[in-house]
């Protein structure tokens, strides 16, 4: 069996989309100065709730909405803990992941082995019939295009709008933003909710399209990869696409290599995407001065208005 480049690209886009969604959400959260390590937990909750909703209503659309809402709801818990009760963001994020994984396993009990309703692929008036370009670019489900539009939207929001400027300002120096009269906590809660909804959407994409079925622990570290990709992208929206597709590409490549029986132990191949991520992160952060230039300066710091 050969590896067809066309099939490879088409499937890497599908593999990358859940991570892309989660990562662009986390980027907004971190730009507001909050480090939410609970992406994995919010993704899997999105995956299971989206799956349950889709199966029960037989509508993939309802599934995606439910997934986003569930991710948002879980992130609201994180927002209350870190923004109002001023608890440590790292610990709260880790707890959120553990809680999400456990809760998802409980909710998903009895939903294993079921097929979700299918999501139709987009047709672009004959464009989808083009050789090469058709199957790689113009023959995907709606969510793939939505995810790319979302990245563009986030980029434009952060770069051109006043609300985006305020959000960046809050992440850069929350004390100064407060002194100027901006509502630091309110802005951060909004960003956290957006991040949660994106992660939930990414999770729902996993269980409804990518796999598509529900299995316990099915996110398998995708949330952590999304977190790494935000750093890899140096907090720049367009580079999120690059990072997610790079990771998706390596994942698909190793699956294909396994399928054609390359003479390398399977464990090494499944390790590959994660190894590549680590290597890229090391290269990215080699220049400390540059890395810290891009990072939001208030990232992970607790804000408390002292006056």
């Amino acid at each position, binding site marked *: 069996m050969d590896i067809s480049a066309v099939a490879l690209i088409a499937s890497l886009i599908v593999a990358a989309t859940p991570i892309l969604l989660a990562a662009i959400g986390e980027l907004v959260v971190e730009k507001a100065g909050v480090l939410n390590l609970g992406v994995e937990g919010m993704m899997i909750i999105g995956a299971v709730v989206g799956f349950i909703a889709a199966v029960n209503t037989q509508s993939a659309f309802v599934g995606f909405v439910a997934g986003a809402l569930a991710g948002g709801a879980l992130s609201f818990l994180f927002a209350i803990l870190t923004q109002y009760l001023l608890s440590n963001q790292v610990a709260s994020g880790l707890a959120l992941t553990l809680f999400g994984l456990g809760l998802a396993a409980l909710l998903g009990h009895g939903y294993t082995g079921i097929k979700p309703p299918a999501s139709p692929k987009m047709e672009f008036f004959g464009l989808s019939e083009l050789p090469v370009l058709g199957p790689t670019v113009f023959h995907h489900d709606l969510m793939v295009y939505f995810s790319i539009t979302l990245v563009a939207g986030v980029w434009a929001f952060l770069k051109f709008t006043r609300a985006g*400027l305020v959000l960046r300002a809050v992440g850069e*120096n929350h004390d100064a*933003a407060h002194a100027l*009269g901006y509502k630091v906590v309110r802005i951060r809660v909004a960003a956290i909710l957006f991040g949660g909804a994106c992660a939930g959407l990414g999770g729902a994409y996993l269980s409804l399209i990518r796999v598509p079925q529900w299995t316990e622990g099915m996110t398998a570290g995708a949330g952590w990869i999304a977190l790494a990709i935000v750093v890899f992208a140096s907090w720049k929206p367009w580079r999120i696409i690059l990072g997610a597709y790079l990771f998706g590409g390596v994942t698909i490549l190793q699956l294909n290599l396994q399928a054609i029986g390359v003479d390398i132990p399977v464990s090494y191949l499944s390790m590959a995407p994660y190894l590549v991520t680590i290597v890229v992160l090391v290269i990215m952060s080699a220049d400390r001065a540059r890395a810290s230039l891009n990072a*939001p300066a208030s990232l992970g710091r607790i804000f408390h208005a002292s006056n």
Partner: protein
Amino acid sequence: MSLISLQNLTKTYPGVIANDAVSFDIDHAEIHALLGENGAGKSTLVKMIYGLVKPDSGTITFQDKPFAPREPRAARKAGVAMVFQHFSLFEALSVAENIALGMEKPPKPAILSDQIREVSVKYGLTLDPERLVGDLSVGERQRVEIIRCLLQEPKLFIMDEPTSVLTPQEVQTLFETLRRLRDEGTSILYISHKLEEIKQLCQRATVLRGGKVVATCTPSAETAKSMAEMMVGTKLTTPQKIKPEFGQPLLRVQNLSVKSADPFGTSLVDINFTLRAGEIMGIAGVAGNGQDELMLALSGEIRTPPASVQIEGGFVGQLGPAKRRQRGLLSAPEERLGHAAAPDMTLTENVLLSAYHRQNLGRRGFIDFARAQIFAQGVIKRFDVRTPSAENSAKSLSGGNLQKFVVGREVMQNPRVFVVNQPTWGVDAAAAAAIRQSLLELAMAGAGVLVISQDLDELMEVSHSFAVLSEGRLSPPRDAEGITVEEIGLLMGGAEIA
């Protein structure tokens, strides 16, 4: 009729009365000084005017109408603008973005950039709207704040300690801008404890002490000393500097170059000087010209080639802080909380962090808490640190008290060489005098002292020799006797590094 009038403003925090029935008023087109020691309640008072703090009782009348801004936005809308002591700027954003954030309804970016250029030309405050604030000098950053305020055409302009970070020449430029604003009808509330400046600039002054108005005066009719005594409430004595005979070279720095790890930091370029026994060397310079990097390289937090830092002839450039301490080089960094002291640890524990070896506070690898406590209590007693006990956490102390503690902790270890950055930053006049006196005594006892500071008056008061750090380069040290503030100012601006 006055522009703004405060009547019986009171604000209490748990355990402290920050403002106690404060009343005064500011006329139209007047520069009014608000004087007071640290902790006298100046900041709380202006925060109430700016809507950041709500008064417990009392009223404000602004332009003949009751005025109770609920948030800064409301105050800005009414025509009150404020430049903060610690700048409210965003380093990773551009000048124009920073200014837009401080405005209610900013115009389109292109129009705003033009407005910024226009105002900066009009008031002689050169500034490029597209530059990143992180790349600007401290003086330029202040211009960003001022222009942000000016674009809103305020009626009342509040400035909180604006000159503490400027060179003397920059101060004069600022004063010209302020006088022009006054002539155009803007009133200015000017907070400072630099009395000579207030004499030059302000028509009237209100003096706060312990949250109460204790005096109102006309600065031009007072002397700096008489105003200082109003602030402190007692007679002041200045420490006496005696020029000693210098002994052996203790600290020698040779061709020291350090690349800054901070993207907005300043790298050091080929620094050379020698500090002798009994000598206090003052290093002046505007913040951000390499002071932090010099401090780190001397304390050992940044390692350099062995020969670049020498203590009594021994190469120590490659050694870390603990090893340098054992050889007699002690240091007290500028940032008290988090760098000089661990905020959540008690004073006793904080003493252990730097004095463990020199004061023998350990026994067979275990901490000797009894001895550590005695040492901590000694520091508290000698430096008059106001704290219930040595078992209180460092962060519970006020800034001035903690500063006395961290300087005292090092001084009491009898250093051979003592390096201190901003020894009296944010400390009231009486405590500052005590800290300076202890530095002079240390030098008289034969230690070498290196004082890095932005406060020129302080450096003139204590140092025997003098050098200026500008853009990471150090001017050759010269005798402090006979040097004038103007000469130093020129050096600080980087005019002549000869």
